[in-house]
């Protein structure tokens, strides 16, 4: 057997044929896009002021981080560490908004799913809040909170909470009554029903809600940072564009996408696998 064949077999064993297939097929559009991007520089189709060469975008990352005085300074969001400060402030807001917004959204959603009166109170205001897309609140948020952290956080929370609320509510409403009855007839309390039936039963919806709200929340954050922020990746691409630093705009957009894809793949997708896939709550072809 040739060396190539044995390497190929080892790789297939290690990662699995299906996973490799998925990876290769999924990367085709990216390969095409990057090739075209590179060919643009080689053949001079569009000037670098519109589309910078790949190398420049790559270098921009290190140029922005050039003056940084070490790891500690980066973590302290020191202004000298421009690149890491933008990334970390966006990430920090996402984490903060998730830590506040997701549990509250789930809690109110579950309550509304269980109780008709509560859902009657909260549903209309929820539809009202959802009718205005998250970013439409930016002008008002700037008036209230000024430019900075509070405005971006407010925009994110507004997006995350209501999406999470509606998804959790629908999830609880979809749980078969018989599960609740089964716990009640074994002497379980309302609290037992919430913990053992509503929360796990609503999990498919809750996880969909998390993926949706983190997706929309992340997008809303970028928009909020552009207009109402003083740091972060959204702020970075907006201010760089104003200064015609096109390579920084490209860099910002790429980092935003990579962070989003990584969160979904390494945080939310595994969560889905560990809960609803294990419990057989998703439809799978047999």
């Amino acid at each position, binding site marked *: 057997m040739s060396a190539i064949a044995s390497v190929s077999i080892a790789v297939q064993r290690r990662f699995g044929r299906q996973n490799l297939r998925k990876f290769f097929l999924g990367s085709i559009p990216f390969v095409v896009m990057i090739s075209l991007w590179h060919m643009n520089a080689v053949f001079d189709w569009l000037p670098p002021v519109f589309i910078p060469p790949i190398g420049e975008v790559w270098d921009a990352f290190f140029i922005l981080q050039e003056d940084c005085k070490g790891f500690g300074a980066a973590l302290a969001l020191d202004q000298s560490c421009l690149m890491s400060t933008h990334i970390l402030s966006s990430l920090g807001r996402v984490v903060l908004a998730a830590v506040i917004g997701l549990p509250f959204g789930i809690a109110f959603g579950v309550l509304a799913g269980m109780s008709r009166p509560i859902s009657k109170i909260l549903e209309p205001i929820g539809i009202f809040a959802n009718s205005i897309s998250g970013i439409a609140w930016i002008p008002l948020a700037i008036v209230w909170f000024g430019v900075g952290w509070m405005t971006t956080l407010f925009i994110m929370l507004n997006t995350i909470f209501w999406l999470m609320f509606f998804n959790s509510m629908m999830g609880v409403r979809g749980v078969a009554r*018989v*599960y609740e009855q*089964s716990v009640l007839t074994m002497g379980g309390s309302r609290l037992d029903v919430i913990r053992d039936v509503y929360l796990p039963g609503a*999990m498919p919806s809750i996880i969909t809600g998390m993926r949706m709200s983190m997706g929309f929340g992340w997008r809303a954050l970028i928009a909020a940072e552009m207009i109402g922020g003083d740091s972060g990746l959204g702020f970075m691409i907006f201010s760089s564009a104003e200064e015609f630093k096109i390579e920084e705009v490209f860099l910002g957009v790429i980092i935003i996408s990579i962070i989003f894809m990584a969160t979904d793949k390494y945080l939310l997708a595994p969560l889905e696998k560990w809960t609803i896939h294990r*419990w057989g709550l998703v439809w799978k072809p047999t």
Partner: protein
Amino acid sequence: MPAKLVVEDLTHHYPDEYTGESVHALEKINLEVQEGELITVVGPSGCGKSTLLNILAGLLPYREGLASVDGVKIDGPGSDRGVVFQEHAILPWRSVAKNIGHGLELRGMAKDEREARVKDFIELVGLTGFEDKYPHELSGGMKQRCAVARTLCADPVVMLMDEPFAAVDAQTRITLQEELNRIAIATKKTIIFITHAVDEAAFLGDRCFVFSARPGRLKAIVDINIPREKRIWADLSADDEFITKRDEILKLVREEVSVAVEE
């Protein structure tokens, strides 16, 4: 000896889900169930037998008449009355062992003690080796075995079963019926078993309560004098007592079905 479960003059109406019209489901039901008895309840569809079971389970509030267990009025669900539902009411997000131990967990029993008890019941229903499987990995028959064990393990005073074997295939149903008989011998539980299958009612019941068409009344009680040890399909299908009683129940039910059809 006082009866385990008593129903006196129980009458029930409920509003129809779509039309809102009042449905007269049960009319003056009077019955007594002794400790350790296995009672089967048959009747035409819509005769209120499931309504009765829901009232006994405490899942349906009632106003007229009285239902009590050990002299205590039934008022809401409680761990003294376990239910095996028609749909497999085992929680998809709990493994077989955790489903079966759920009742004990809700009661706050220590883990070691609970696991020992769960193990016994897994053996009783023949699910050894499947402890860590999730419900979606089980066959229909195994799911219903798990549901029976889930209810039994919580050690209720009375076990209420609502057409539990209706959704499984014929072969599995026969096995499950024989297994339930074996469980009844082993645990001496008081069981009320609702069914629309006359064969099943005659096979399992110490006594069979036949209900009339709506409004449901207790039309007749058929005693089936066959020792539990002798209740095996291979022997029973040619047994005189079984055939006589099954035909008697069938006749009683068919009279009611024709009434229901004429209406």
